[in-house]
């Protein structure tokens, strides 16, 4: 199978995984499609970065950042809570493979490998969380700037 076909299949799978997780946690019907696209967007950012210049940390960081920012934008647009969009969005970024390898190594008594996988899991989870933190910061700044701009416009109008 050539790489482009495989990439497209992966994209479809990411979209489907967002929708599937939405079905499990009982999202409203209107939010399902957008949650899938949000997951796809975050994963694309992750995928592009990890395949060009970034390592595990930066790719997950920017993936989490992207999901955090877009889900707040979507939430304002759709007038729904932002948690509806970022929970399905994070599903494709979860370090499932590494977590499983940790457990398997522990179960097989291979502690050296287990600890190295465990540190990888912690590193990935920490980067995603950090991305979320920065996303929160970006959103707060964005809202504040918008409010200030509106105030500025109003004051200018009243002067004229």
């Amino acid at each position, binding site marked *: 199978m050539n790489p482009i076909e495989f990439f497209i299949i992966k994209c479809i799978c990411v979209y489907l995984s967002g929708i599937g997780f939405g079905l499990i946690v009982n999202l*409203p019907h209107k939010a399902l499609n957008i949650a899938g696209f949000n997951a796809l967007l975050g994963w694309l950012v992750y995928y592009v970065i990890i395949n060009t210049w970034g390592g595990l940390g930066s790719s997950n960081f920017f993936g989490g950042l992207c999901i955090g920012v877009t889900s707040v934008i979507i939430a304002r647009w759709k007038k729904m809570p932002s948690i509806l969009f970022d929970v399905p969005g994070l599903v494709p970024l979860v370090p499932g493979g590494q977590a499983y390898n940790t457990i398997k190594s522990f179960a097989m008594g291979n502690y050296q490998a287990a600890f190295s996988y465990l540190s990888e899991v912690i590193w990935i989870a920490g980067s995603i969380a950090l991305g979320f*933190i920065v996303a*929160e910061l970006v959103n707060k700044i964005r809202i504040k700037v918008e409010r200030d701009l509106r105030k500025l416009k109003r004051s200018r109008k009243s002067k004229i």
Partner: protein
Amino acid sequence: MTAHLINQISGVRLSVLNPVISGVCKLMDEEQRKYEQKRQHDQLVLDTCILAGTIMIESGSEMTRVNNTILRIARNAGLAKARVYVTVTGIIMSGGVSDVGAQVGSIDKRSFDLEKVAKVNELSRLFEAKQIDISDFYDQLIHIDDVVGTFPLWVQEIGAGIVSGALTVVFRNNIADFWITCLVGMAGWAVLYFLNIYVQIRFLSEFLAAAVVAALAIMSVQLGFGHQADDIIVGAMMPLVPGIPLTNAVRDALSGNLISGPARGIEALISACALGFGVAIALHFM
């Protein structure tokens, strides 16, 4: 009515003062009635706030949203000085008026039902826009299980299957095992669903579901349906991963809620450990 009583008690017929007394008494009655009405209204607002908060926390909302929603409802209903203290296991709220005391709501079970969060949010928006009044609001919250539909089991099963199969492809680049992973994931979700109904301990049902998933995956490879047992397990575990407590733990800790954030983190950690032990036991015995 009060005027009549005063007349009887005094025993003297002050016919000149009669209209004045009755007028004053009518005013007092009116005042009393208004006071009673206000008290009932405030009580209803407090009940609504507590109920809304309880539903939101039970369905997996983050604490800042619960706090904001409750305060917004109270402010729009005229309780400007309302105060609220929200944790994962309980809500304490006072109205800021002397007539009604503080209220406590306790939260015993937590599940994931984001549509309820969205519904409460929508109702509070409608209330803010004055399209529904407080008693409507309360009614809808009481009957939220009828208002908000849950996906039936078969739709949830399809969701679990899609998540499992798709994530095997994404995480492990393994297209050949798509269908068998779907089936194993569906079986794991069904085990979790039914155990959650019959056994009230969430961690135990997660443990058993993980064990079932791993055992089925290894069996399917042994019987020749699948190719890579590891990939099937990774995919089929994904519907069981505690995604909402994890994201909420980060958010709550970030917003400065140092009680709820770590508590949720512990919840997610215990879930993850239960899943891990389930898989480990199945790997040992198969």
